[in-house]
């Protein structure tokens, strides 16, 4: 294969890398007041990536760089959604970061490198590429959390994130090395083939699998590997929390499905049992512990844990239904989480973080529109129709029941009921209580427009969820090698 044919599927990644370097240099030459130039340039780069991704879309599955890299419908869809999520994150956080002196060139460039890491993860077809993407993402995120140097809590969060993240990477790498030892390959399809041929050492495979799954669970924040999630969500500046809590979940879905479904499908009976335990534990601990939180960022952290558990149920169910529903769930979760963290940033002011749940008291009297949008987001997270969160849960439950695990579906809905309580409490605080402060909410036109689109999107997608569901199912169907 010639060079050009290899480069074409990775066009968006290459473009983003070039742009990140250009922005890094350009930013050195401008003052704080000119930051809007680089900010706009970042948004333009994301737009350019989107155009390239759409433009280079080829029917079917294209492999490049000796099968290390794959370009298929699922990767294109996930990448487009990633650009969207990153772009939204940047718009939401501009004002928030400016007020805290964090709106720097480093932030923008690191965000782009994190995006690049996610793109590589999404398109990886080889253990090394997967790992490379994951580390690029993780290192960018560690640095971004640490960017708020004056805040002790943010620094602590960065340390925790880094140490536990490094541990997880170590586990993952160790597991991968065992799989390599057993199968003699790092390429996903070759690994799968070697396992199917029966020549691989079964003990070694299962050991490797345990480590790989543990590493994945760490990165997803699934119980019992979740301890870093609340601290990092809480400690990081809200803009960084939003970044950690949104787009990487899409990459994580791709990551899990590439490794487990494409690479280790022959071991499904082993890993699905592990995922069931992770899923139930995550839903239980996540939902129950979230009730006790007074800090909304911690509450949303535990809610993320629970949501990831729910997503894993889709992976457990298998088949197009299962993986498609898990992808749909991840996409919807990202949309809701962007809105929720966006709202927290919108309510924050200079020198004031709206990060306790009491800061939402009486919001319906201070700003009925924002309260209504938050209501939609919270009901969507709780999975109450007519918001789209319901369909996310619905499609996963359908996959679970179809796979014959009715009891698992019942367990999942019971924990959703527990979860509904703390989302409902936010609505209660906004609508039933008197406000604690009457400080005016100051926000830019761009953020309020974005949060409106985000909140109403949750409702409109809830009224017409069919299109997005089909996109997810089709991309999973065309991309994952389902045996």
């Amino acid at each position, binding site marked *: 294969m010639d060079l050009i044919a290899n480069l074409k599927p990775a066009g968006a990644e290459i473009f983003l890398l070039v742009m990140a370097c250009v922005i890094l240099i350009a930013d050195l030459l401008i003052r704080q007041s000119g930051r809007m130039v680089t900010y706009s340039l970042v948004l333009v780069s994301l737009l350019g990536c989107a155009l390239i991704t759409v433009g280079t879309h080829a029917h079917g599955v294209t492999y490049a760089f000796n099968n290390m890299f794959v370009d298929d419908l699922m990767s294109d869809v996930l990448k487009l959604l990633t650009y969207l999520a990153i772009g939204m994150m940047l718009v939401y956080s501009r004002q928030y970061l400016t007020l805290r002196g964090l709106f720097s060139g480093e932030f923008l460039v690191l965000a782009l490198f994190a995006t690049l890491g996610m793109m590589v993860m999404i398109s990886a077809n080889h253990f090394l590429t997967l790992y490379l993407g994951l580390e690029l993402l993780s290192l960018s995120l560690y640095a971004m959390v640490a960017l708020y140097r004056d805040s002790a809590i943010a620094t602590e969060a960065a340390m925790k994130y880094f140490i536990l993240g490094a541990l997880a990477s170590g586990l993952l790498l160790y597991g991968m090395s065992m799989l390599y030892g057993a199968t003699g390959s790092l390429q996903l399809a070759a690994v799968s083939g070697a396992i199917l041929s029966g020549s691989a050492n079964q003990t070694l495979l299962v050991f490797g699998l345990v480590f790989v799954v543990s590493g994945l669970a760490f990165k997803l924040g699934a119980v019992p590997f979740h301890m870093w999630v609340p601290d990092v969500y809480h400690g990081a500046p809200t803009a960084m929390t939003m970044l950690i809590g949104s787009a990487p979940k899409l990459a994580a879905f791709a990551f899990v499905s590439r490794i487990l479904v494409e690479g280790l499908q022959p071991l499904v009976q082993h890993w699905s049992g592990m995922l069931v335990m992770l899923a139930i534990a995550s839903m239980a601990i996540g939902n129950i512990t979230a009730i006790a939180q007074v800090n909304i960022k911690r509450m949303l952290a535990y809610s993320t844990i629970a949501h990831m558990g729910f997503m894993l149920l889709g992976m457990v169910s298998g088949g197009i239904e299962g993986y498609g529903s898990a992808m749909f769930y991840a996409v919807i979760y990202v949309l809701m989480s962007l809105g929720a963290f966006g709202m927290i940033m919108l309510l924050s002011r200079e020198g004031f973080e709206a990060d306790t749940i009491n800061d939402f008291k009486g919001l319906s009297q201070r700003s009925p529109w924002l309260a209504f949008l938050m209501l939609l987001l919270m009901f969507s997270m709780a999975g109450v*129709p007519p918001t789209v969160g319901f369909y996310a849960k619905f499609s996963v439950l359908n996959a679970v029941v179809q796979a014959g695990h009715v009891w698992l579906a019942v367990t999942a809905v019971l924990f959703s009921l527990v979860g509904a309580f703390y989302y*409902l409490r936010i609505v209660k605080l906004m609508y039933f209580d008197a406000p604690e402060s009457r400080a005016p909410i100051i926000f830019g036109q761009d953020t309020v427009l974005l949060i409106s689109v985000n909140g109403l999107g949750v409702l409109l997608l809830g009224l017409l969820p069919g299109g997005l569901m089909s996109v997810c199912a089709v991309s999973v169907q065309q991309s994952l090698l389902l045996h």
Partner: protein
Amino acid sequence: MIFGLPAISIAIWLPIIFGILVLATGDDRNAALARILALAGSLLGFLATIPLYTGFARDTSEMQFVELHDWINRFNIHYHVGVDGISVLFILLTAFFTPIVVLAGWQVIEKRVAQYMASFLIMSGIMIGVFAALDAVLFYVFWEAMLIPMFLIIGVWGGQNRVYAAVKFFLYTLLGSLLMLVALIYLYNQSGGSFAIPDFHHVALPMGAQVLIFIAFFFAFAVKVPMFPVHTWLPDAHVEAPTGGSVILAAIMLKVGAYGFIRFSMPIAPDASHHLAGVMIALSLIAVVYIGLVALTQTDMKKLVAYSSISHMGFVTLGLFIFNAYGMEGALMQMISHGFVSGALFLCIGVLYDRMHSRNIADYGGVANNMPVFAAFFMLFAMANSGLPGTSGFVGEFIVILGAVKANFWYAFAAATTLIFGAAYTLWMYKRVIFGAVANPHVAELADLNLREKVIFAVLAATVLGMGLYPLPFSEIMHVSVNDLLVHVARSKLPM
């Protein structure tokens, strides 16, 4: 379709669109506009449902005015609505009560008027959607969506302990609904990929699955009815809700649960329904007798009527699970009648509460001296609640007791005690509140009904009397559908 227009969709979406318009009027500076818009929307909404009654073919049990459109193709989910002789009455009842609650909150609600009115309009559309939905997912969406406005109504405009009541209401009902969702998804997979409720009626299911499905539905519907022992949310919700909220809760929302038994539990799991009928009847009789006694001891008027509602709804579930035509038609008549009567009673209490800001029976006495017109209306509704012949309350109770005698004399015997207890708690409350010497200076200052209130009560009184004296317009429309349902339920669905 009527004149080429989708009649049911209009009935569902017209109030919702008006609700959004009312919301758009903004804050309380435009309260007058919000009120007028809400009244117009609710009246138009009611008018829109009348063609469903007049154009209804009485000689078939087929679904009528059916609309079928693709919605979510991936799961074969459709926007599928239609009515039969059972659901059409509830749609009318829902649309009938919306203008009444709008009028009832006309002056009393002073803060966040637009949001209050809009909640009721939107809820009205959603509840009509629940009764009209023929696709299980569409049904579920309406069913859950109903919770959101009611949660806000109780929590924002409710009384002292409103937050507790609102959260309890929401979580109780959500628990049941989520189990129902799993059952619906299971049925979807069993029926070969269809969410159409009529298709569910024909899925063969082994006994074990039927029992589990019945239990899942039971949680959803029994909570809404509410049946003993999952009734405890209702007194809290009623007491804390504003008058309009109580009226809608009692008149419509409780009916949704019983409607669910008719539309889902019985035809989908007929063998399990027969198998578990004994339990259902026992729970119903406990509700009738025990809750009737509980009502007797209440000191709070709203709580008393709330317990009386539970007791009367026990009659409904009793009628359903004795599986004969009398029981079923009696249950339906009782549901309609209870809608009018309990709604009217909550409005009466609301009238007193607006003037005195107390629901305690002990704070009243001798109200008749200052409010003779009110006392007369209240008397009529109290009599109807205790099942006096000539009022609508009598019709349903009488027919259910007839049906119960056919099934088992002792069922009828236990059920008939309600005629005594019902009269006892209602009339005793009436006596303590209305008659006697003027209890305190506040009562002496009470003003009688104003024109707005007179209109509301006159309409309700005419309906209660009309239904009591000439129930045929209500019963003839349901006749064919009820018989068809009974035939269906009598057929076993166990796989051969």
